[in-house]
């Protein structure tokens, strides 16, 4: 009985989502300008590392596998390090695969950080891969990647 109108509503949302895409600039289909312009995930990481080799491990990236709304996705990055003067994490950077820009955030840490553990909330335009890279005080780079499926909310507002 209610199935049909509900499905129509969901279809409508699909269209609205599309219209709204112009506003949030978050859907790839809506703005090919930046989709073409942005560096790839690997290029962005290379810029950060200066071309150095990036090893797997020593870093953990927590990202919910299923995201209710891409506007605020909680992430935590933890790197294994004693955080001493001689051996600590200098920077932790986060990159994404499909947003208009590949960079998300770069954290600068010190031995006085105690742990190499940071949390923040990020935007995900669509389902995609997110990568965290840690730069150690010895100049080595370590990384971890995770992917998230993003479903968006249904009741969408008009622009006005």
């Amino acid at each position: 009985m209610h199935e049909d109108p509900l499905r129509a509503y969901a279809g409508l949302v699909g269209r609205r989502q599309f219209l709204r895409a112009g506003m949030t600039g978050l859907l790839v289909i809506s703005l090919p300008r930046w989709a073409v312009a942005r560096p790839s995930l690997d290029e962005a990481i290379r810029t950060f590392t200066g071309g150095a080799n990036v090893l797997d491990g020593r870093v953990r990236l927590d990202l919910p596998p299923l995201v209710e709304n891409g506007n605020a996705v909680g992430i935590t990055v933890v790197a294994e390090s004693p955080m001493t003067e001689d051996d600590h994490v200098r920077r932790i950077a986060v990159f994404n695969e499909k947003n208009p820009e590949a960079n998300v955030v770069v954290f600068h840490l010190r031995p006085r950080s105690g742990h190499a553990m940071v949390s923040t909330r990020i935007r995900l335009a669509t389902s995609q891969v997110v990568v965290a890279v840690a730069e150690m005080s010895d100049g080595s780079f370590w990384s971890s990647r995770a992917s998230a499926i993003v479903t968006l909310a249904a009741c969408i507002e008009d622009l006005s």
Partner: protein
Amino acid sequence: MHALWRLAAVAVAAVCGIVSAAGIEDGEKRSGFDFMAPATQALQADDMSNPGMLWVLQGEQLWQQAQGRADVACSGCHNDARQTMRGVAARYPAFDAATGRPIDLAGRINSCRAERQQAEPLAPESDALLALTAYVTHQSRGMPITPATDARLARFRDNGRRLFQSRIGQLDLSCASCHDDNWGKRLGGSVIPQAHPTGYPLYRLEWQTVGSLQRRLRNCMIGVRAEPFAFGAAELVDLELHLMDRARGLLIETPAVRP
């Protein structure tokens, strides 16, 4: 064959009508919180990471600021909100003798601003009005919704119920079609909640900011391709009255977080 099928559909519709008039059983009442993903629930649960708390904090500062030609702060008349505003939001909207109509909490705050402080009223959805409303409502967090019993409200509450059950928009759906008859089902990636007003003003991830219950109701009207009532419209306040009545006993969560 076809005609028979259509007859059956009409019969089902009639039955559905009776079922939806009964609404949600008391034992089945659930806040929108219960339908959220664990990550979103965690965001609401920790005051140090709940972005809605930024508005509550702003409201606390505004509460203490002298305003208007009267040059008096809310606290100048109402003292410590933690005592004087405790439980107030749980029984709003209330009857406003001056207009002979129900008034919601944001409306009451604005009337104090205009009449007692003699200041310009705050615009709907302005940060300042949301902040004050969130701060006042926050004083009732954890308290059960106990709608005002004033008999003069009955007629407006009935109108709210009628609006809730009326089909609107190009999709010809009523609020009840979704929130009474289909709650818990998925719709375009989100779960349909029971539409309880327990958390407002709340931080909606979709808005990336705090918004009022009226903004939420307007969103749903736009969702079914209906012309939404204007902010402050009498119909929205009547709907708010009905929603509070429907949610009787559920606990105030402000500032909630919703997807």
